C-alpha cells in the first residue's frame, strides 16, 4: 500500500492501439462445416466407417475388373470350388465366380439402399417441413397421419407392397420408402418448428419472400445436419431389409443377385460349402457396420450437444 502511494500518475500513459488492430481477429475463423470436419476427423470410429464405405464402393464398382469372369456365366465343371487361381472367392453351386457375384450383389444392395434413402429424404423433408412450418391445424392433421404411419409395423407394409409389385430394384426401394420416411419427417418437423421463430426467417418474410422460398432457401439448409444423420442411419437399415426380403423370397429374385440373394443361396449349402456364406455375409456386415460408425461419428460431429 505504501509503495503504491509513491507511484506518480505520469508513470502511466494510455496504450496506442489502432481501432483497426483491435478489431482484427487473432486467429483464422472456423466455419460450421470446417468445425464439423475437425470434430469428425478426430473420431477414430467415424474415419474408419468412412474409409470402409469408400473402399466397398470402390470394390463394388471396380472390383469386377480384377478377373475375367462375369456374375452370371455358369461353369459347371468348376462348381463349388473354394478360392483357386483367379476365382478369389471360389465358385458357387452353378460354377459362377463368387468374387464377381459378391461385388455385383453389393452394387445392387447399395443401389437399393441409396434409392430408398433418397426417397425418404424427398418425402420426409417435404412432409416434415410443411407440417412444422405452417403449424396449427395443418400440423395437427399431418401429425395424426404421421402417428398412425408410425405405429404400422414397417415389416408388414413392406411385405404387402412386395406382394403387389414385381420384385426389382425400384419396387423394393419404394416399398421401403413407404414407411421409411416417417422418422425423417419427425426430425425435420421438430427442427423447422424450432427454427421458424428465428430472426432471419422474420427478416426474409419482411422482405417479401414466399413460404416456399423461406422453407427451401432458409430453413431446410439449416436442418441439413439432422437430415444427413438420418440418411446415414436409413441406409444400413435399408440394406438389412433388402437382404431380409431376399431371404424370405420377396426381394430381388435369382438369377438377379444382391447380397441377400447370395446369402440365401449359400445357406442351403451351408453345411458343405460354408465359404459361400462367409464372403457375402462379411461384406454385408461390413457395409452395415461402416454406415453405423459413420452415422455415430456424424451425429457427434454435427451436433456436439448430443455428445455424451
Amino acid at each position, binding site marked *: 500500500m505504501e509503495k503504491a502511494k509513491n507511484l506518480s500518475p505520469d508513470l502511466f500513459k494510455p496504450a496506442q492501439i489502432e481501432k483497426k488492430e483491435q478489431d482484427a481477429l487473432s486467429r483464422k475463423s472456423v466455419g460450421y462445416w470446417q468445425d464439423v470436419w475437425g470434430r469428425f476427423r478426430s473420431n477414430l470410429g467415424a474415419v474408419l466407417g468412412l474409409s470402409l464405405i469408400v473402399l466397398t464402393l470402390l470394390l463394388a464398382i471396380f472390383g469386377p475388373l480384377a478377373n475375367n469372369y462375369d456374375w452370371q456365366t455358369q461353369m459347371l465343371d468348376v462348381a463349388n470350388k473354394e478360392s483357386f487361381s483367379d476365382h478369389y472367392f471360389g465358385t458357387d453351386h452353378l460354377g459362377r465366380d463368387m468374387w464377381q457375384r459378391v461385388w455385383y450383389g453389393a452394387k445392387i444392395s447399395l443401389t437399393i439402399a441409396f434409392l430408398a434413402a433418397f426417397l425418404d429424404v424427398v418425402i420426409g423433408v417435404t412432409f416434415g417441413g410443411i407440417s412444422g412450418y405452417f403449424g396449427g391445424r395443418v400440423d395437427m392433421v399431418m401429425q395424426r397421419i404421421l402417428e*398412425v404411419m408410425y405405429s404400422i*409395423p414397417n415389416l408388414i407394409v413392406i411385405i*404387402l407392397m412386395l406382394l403387389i409389385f414385381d420384385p426389382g430394384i425400384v419396387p423394393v426401394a419404394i416399398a421401403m420408402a413407404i414407411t421409411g420416411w416417417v422418422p425423417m419427417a419427425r426430425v425435420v418437423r421438430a427442427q423447422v418448428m424450432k427454427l421458424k421463430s428465428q430472426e432471419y426467417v422474420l427478416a426474409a418474410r419482411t422482405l417479401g419472400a414466399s413460404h416456399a422460398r423461406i422453407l427451401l432457401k432458409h430453413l431446410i439448409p439449416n436442418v441439413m445436419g439432422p437430415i444427413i444423420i438420418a440418411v446415414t442411419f436409413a441406409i444400413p437399415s435399408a440394406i438389412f431389409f433388402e437382404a*431380409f426380403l431376399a431371404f424370405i423370397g420377396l426381394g430381388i429374385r435369382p438369377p438377379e443377385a444382391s447380397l441377400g440373394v447370395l*446369402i440365401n443361396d449359400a445357406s442351403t449349402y451351408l453345411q458343405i460349402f460354408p465359404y459361400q456364406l462367409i464372403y457375402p455375409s462379411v461384406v454385408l*456386415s461390413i457395409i452395415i457396420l461402416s454406415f453405423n460408425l459413420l452415422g455415430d461419428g456424424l451425429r457427434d460431429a454435427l451436433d456436439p450437444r448430443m455428445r455424451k
Partner: protein
Amino acid sequence: MLRYTLKRLGYMVVTLWLIITITFFIMHLLPGTPLKNEEKIPPQVREQILEQYGLKDPLPVQYVKFMGNLLQGDLGKSMTLDGRNVADFIVEGFPVSAFVGSQAVIFGTLIGLLLGTIAGLNRGKLVDNAAIIVAVLGVSVPSFVMGGFLSYFVGVKLQWLPTGLWESYESSILPSLALSFGVIAQISRYVRTEMVEVLDQDYMKTAKAKGLNRSTVIIRHALRNALIPAVTVLGPLAVNIITGSLVIEQIFALPGLGKFFVQSIQQNDYTMIMGVTVFYSALIIIVIFLVDLLYGLIDPRIRISGAKE
C-alpha cells in the same frame, strides 16, 4: 393416466383396423386367383372352390364377412395346406416362436444390462471400449448372418448343439442365441449411455455422502434411474425379434409361425398371409402399446405431460 391410456388405446384400434383393411384389399386386388395349378382345374371345380372360399361374392360383402369372422377369431382356411384353419397354424406355430423369442429377449436383456452397467461404470477404460465394439457389431450384423455362423461353427463343426429338428430344449438354444445378439447390443448401448448420465447427477453424490456402500448406490440409485429410458427400447426390440424370427426359423428349420408365414408367402397362400399378417400386426401393436403404458407407469414425467395434452 387414464386419459393417456384411452388415447393410446384409440390409436391402437385405428391402426389395427387400417392394417386389416389395407391387407384385405391388397390381397383381393392381386391379379389372378389364389389357386394352385389353375390351368389344370376344370371350370366346374374351379367355380366350386371359389364358391367355397366365398370368393364369388362382391368385394364389400367379402369384406364385411371377413371382418365379422375376424372378430370371432376365425381367420379362414389355408388355401394350400389341406384347407386347415389358419388359426390352427397360429396356435401350433406361435408357442414355438414365442418360446425362442422370449428366451432371446431374457438372455439378451440380462447380458446387455450387465455389459452396459460395467461399461458405464468404467467409462473410457478398456472394458468400456470393448462393450462399445460389441454393441456396434451386434447392431450391424444381421441375425440371419449370426444364425448361419452359429449353425455352422457350433452346430456342424463342433457338434455341440443341434441345428435342425425341433426335438428337445437344446434345439432352441442356437436360434435364441442368434436372436439375442441384437438385444444385447441395443440394451447395453442404452444402459451405458444412461448410466454415464445418471452417475453425474447430484443425487448420486448425496447417496455416496450418506455413506451407502457401493453396491447399494449402483443398484438402487444409479441402475434404477438408468433403466427408465431403457424401457423404451423394448418396443422396437420386440419388433426386431419378430422380424428376425422369420429368418431364423428358416435357418434352423423350427416349426414356428415365422416358418409358416414365409412358406405361405412363397406359395401365394392368400388367406394364410392375411391371417398371419393380421396376427403379427396385432402382436406388434399390442406390445408397443404395453411398453408405452409401462413407461408411463415407471416414469411419472410422461404421465403428467400425457395428461396435459
